[in-house]
């Protein structure tokens, strides 16, 4: 990656503060002055005496009332840049050079925020009053000990001259504005009583209650489901228009950028690679990094056989011993491998009311699920958090025992009833199914070397001598495109993508036939995501593996899966081959999901009006024939054609649905 800091040629941004003529001409248009102008900003982190520059000469502007998206991978310095605007840098970081000019109104004098200490009265009165921020993690960014009303009201009392009795009505109004169904009740609730989406709404209410001139949104929807993401984005856009504020949107999701931004700033390794209006960034990208980034994102509009171009491709090598397995596996393609029928699992939760006692509620996490997986295919399962996909997967690897149903395994040695296995037989069988986990950081023990991590499965199953295991571990490393010399290292010295490849190598150590992948790329940066997806795809075809691939990201599943099941509230509502599902979605839930995915394409914007109107996220109700009439067992999967099933009322005529 050549470190070019070349700003967009047709950018109209007055980047230096000497460019007064441009600024003066803008003053004529009331809306068009810059609220923030960042000028050659350098930020350094103190690492035990030596400075590490994490932001190296960034310059850009944020015009009043507009949205500027700051795009970059993790570690590119975008969050710390936001913190420097607010003056909440961590203790080890400081601005070493450059200035941040802030001007609230056109006629105000610009003040350089870097000339004040972070805790000076000037900065404190700006924070929360004129400039606010919302964070990525709605689960941790609110205090668990204080009520929502207290936390929102606090900002109000700090920055506005308001009498104590006026606080509550103002806060309640704000909560109503951000879409709380019962704002009066929410005022005295604690954050843990709210869902993730509502917490993020509360956070937005807190940021906006003082009517700031600039809102910094630091990955505001990354931790949310796609339908909730669409709603929060819609809310931000609506509020921005109502309150006439500028938004600085920090994100790595180009789909979000295309839907929200007026101007885009692309950051890489602390430097700005490219900046300009959203039109020219998407239609006419100049910088290699930006072009590569745009090609690395799986999209719902790309051709079905198109290959993602990852920023850094990896060379890998299949060991000879594995090729033999591959031949055996590929000798019988398209035969049935795994058959799941009528699988169910319920959990009992106690909902405590008051100090003592409580009611028990039964949650049907997986409810009567049936599907088949053929040898050599990739079976994708899509659903939002809480739909039961992880529970399903845990039952498939026999980590949870289902309440009822059957799982049958079929291979050259005959048919096996998986649920009847126990003891030694189960242990032996486990070699056939292995798992790749979501979080590459917590799924590798920080105290084991990579060699030990890769050897452990073989040790557990007593395969080979210690030397053979070590040799095989080296082969596994080459298999996922890592140097065998890395075997002596510990996981912390690897990047997220490399860790995930180690996780894949570990899963392949026992030469399984079926690999179960639980959101394997959702914790990775977009550029690395393409790399890991491509690796998984190649391994599948070269080794003849079968995958069950779980994700909440429709574009990712569309890229990798051959057949896809859509899960909703513990049930499969639609199941079809890939083209069939995306070309002719039938179930309203599938359609809704497809509608709320933001595309990295300016010609394909989200319909925010429609998303905002549709308030039935949680208690979603379908129209006939997709809704249950008696509340339960009157729905079944029917065939639309041989490749497409959908869950409707029993006895519905399939021809009715194809229209």
């Amino acid at each position, binding site marked *: 990656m050549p470190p070019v800091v070349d700003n967009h040629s047709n950018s109209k941004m007055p980047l230096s503060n000497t460019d007064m003529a441009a600024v003066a001409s803008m003053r004529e248009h009331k809306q068009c002055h810059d609220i923030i102008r960042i000028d050659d900003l350098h930020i350094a982190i103190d690492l035990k005496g030596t400075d590490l520059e994490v932001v190296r000469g960034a310059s850009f502007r944020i015009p009043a009332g507009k949205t500027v998206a700051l795009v970059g991978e993790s570690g590119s310095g975008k969050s710390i840049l936001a913190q420097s605007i*607010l003056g909440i840098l961590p203790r080890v970081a400081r601005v070493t050079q450059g200035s941040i000019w802030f001007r609230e109104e056109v006629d105000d004098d610009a003040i350089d925020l870097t000339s004040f200490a972070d805790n000076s009265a000037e900065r404190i009165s700006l*924070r*929360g009053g004129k400039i606010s921020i919302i964070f990525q993690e709605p689960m*941790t*960014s609110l205090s*668990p000990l204080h009520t929502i009303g207290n936390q929102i009201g*606090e900002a109000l009392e*700090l920055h506005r001259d308001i009498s104590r009795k006026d606080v509550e009505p103002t806060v309640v109004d704000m909560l109503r504005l951000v879409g709380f169904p019962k704002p009066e009740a929410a005022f005295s609730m604690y954050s843990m009583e709210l869902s993730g989406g509502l917490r993020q709404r509360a956070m937005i209410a807190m940021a906006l209650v003082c009517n700031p001139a600039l809102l910094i949104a630091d990955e505001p929807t990354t931790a949310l489901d796609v339908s909730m993401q669409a709603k929060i984005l819609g809310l931000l856009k609506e509020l921005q228009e109502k309150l006439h504020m500028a938004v600085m949107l920090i994100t790595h999701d180009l789909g979000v950028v295309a839907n929200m931004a007026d101007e885009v700033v692309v950051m890489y390794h602390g430097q700005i690679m490219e900046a300009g209006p959203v039109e020219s960034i998407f239609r006419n990208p100049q910088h290699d990094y930006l072009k590569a980034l745009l090609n690395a994102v799986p999209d719902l509009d790309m051709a079905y056989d198109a290959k993602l171009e990852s920023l850094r491709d990896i060379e890998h090598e299949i060991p000879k011993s594995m090729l033999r397995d591959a031949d055996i596996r590929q000798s019988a393609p398209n035969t049935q491998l795994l058959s799941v029928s009528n699988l169910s699992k319920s959990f009992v939760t106690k909902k*405590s009311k008051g100090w003592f006692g409580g009611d028990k509620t039964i949650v049907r996490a997986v409810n009567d699920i049936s599907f088949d997986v053929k040898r050599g295919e990739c079976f994708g399962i899509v659903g939002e958090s809480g739909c039961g996909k992880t529970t399903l997967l845990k039952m498939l690897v026999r980590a949870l025992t289902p309440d009822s149903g059957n799982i049958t395994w079929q291979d050259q040695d005959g048919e096996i009833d998986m649920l009847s296995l126990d003891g030694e037989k189960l242990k032996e069988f486990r070699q056939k199914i292995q798992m790749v986990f979501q979080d590459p950081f917590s799924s590798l023990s920080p105290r084991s070397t990579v060699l030990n991590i890769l050897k452990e499965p073989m040790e557990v199953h007593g395969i080979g001598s210690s030397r053979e295991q070590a040799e095989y571990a080296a082969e596994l490393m080459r298999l996922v495109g890592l140097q065998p010399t890395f075997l002596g290292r510990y996981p912390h010295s690897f990047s997220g993508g490399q860790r995930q490849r180690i996780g894949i190598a570990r899963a392949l150590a026992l030469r399984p036939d079926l690999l179960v992948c639980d959101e394997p790329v959702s914790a990775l940066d977009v550029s690395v995501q393409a790399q890991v997806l491509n690796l998984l795809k190649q391994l599948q075809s070269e080794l003849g593996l079968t995958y069950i691939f779980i994700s909440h990201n429709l574009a990712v599943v569309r890229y990798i899966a051959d057949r896809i099941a859509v899960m909703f509230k513990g049930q499969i509502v639609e199941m079809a081959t890939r083209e069939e599902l995306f070309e002719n979605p039938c179930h309203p839930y599938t359609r809704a999901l497809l509608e709320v995915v933001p595309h990295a394409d300016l010609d394909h914007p989200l319909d925010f009006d429609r998303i905002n109107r549709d308030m039935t996220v949680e208690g979603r109700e379908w129209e006939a024939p997709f809704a249950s009439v008696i509340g339960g067992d009157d729905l079944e999967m029917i065939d639309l054609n041989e490749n497409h099933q959908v869950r409707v009322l029993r006895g519905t005529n399939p021809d009715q649905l194809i229209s």
Partner: protein
Amino acid sequence: MIPTLVLASIVIFTIIQLPPGDYVESYIGELLAAGESVDLERVEYLRAEYGLDQPMWKRYLLWITNFVQGDFGYSFENQRPVSEVVGNRLWLTILVSFATIILTWVIAFPIGIYSATHQYSWGDYGLTFLGLLGLATPNFLLALVMMYFAQTIFGVSIGGLMDKEFIDQPMSWPKFWSVLEHLIVPTVVIGTAGTAAMIRRIRANLLDELEKQYVITARAKGVPPFKALVKYPLRMSLNFFVADIGSLLPSIISGAEIVSIVLSLQTTGPLLITALKSQDMYLAGSFLMFLATLTVIGVLLSDIALGFLDPRIRLQGGADK
């Protein structure tokens, strides 16, 4: 709570009964050592009188039923009811303990907060060093050293909890003043180790909390630094501290015995040790039972306080994972 106390009483009683012999035997041993003759009939009489010839479970039942009714038994050694022997000293013990706890808090909190907010500064290093020094010094040694200096430099005897002339006198201003004066050294001595430990814990807990996202949220909201510290992370780190109160009470009461002996304080600590040495079983048993009850009450209190302080505990109680 009740089952815990019942179990505790059984364990206490069994342990007290574990060493061979009983009070009468050690009493005889003492008499013999003093060169006096012992009348065997008198021995048997004493045994029967005190119920020592009964089987163990009967003695336990007798003891525990009386205990519940407020009759704590009879101290052989002091020839007085246990309630009288302990009663006098209990108030003084509670006084010393509370003074110690408050001193611990008053010193530990500001230092812990300073250390956490100025991590790796010279102040933090210096205070950490002092704290570790306090943690490592044995209490009784400190007591001896302080007594020596008080005697040689200030010329005052700081042994005891009040000047000799006030012992067994009714409460008066001079007596109260004398008690306060004498309280300083014991509280400092008993409190050092606890203070040092508490500084370390406040610092560690607060450091964890300071990094949390909600603290950054508060700062981003424009909450002034000191208020942001007290309202959010400090409040959060109080949890451990409240949970600690339960174990604080008994540990201070029982942990101070040796110091109390060195400083000859009229608290319950030395009493317990002599009682255990001479197998004065009702005195020791009742006393240990007090400690157990205090612990259980302390834990209950801190649980209730936690419920009030932390909505997560209040609202999620009993949820199955």
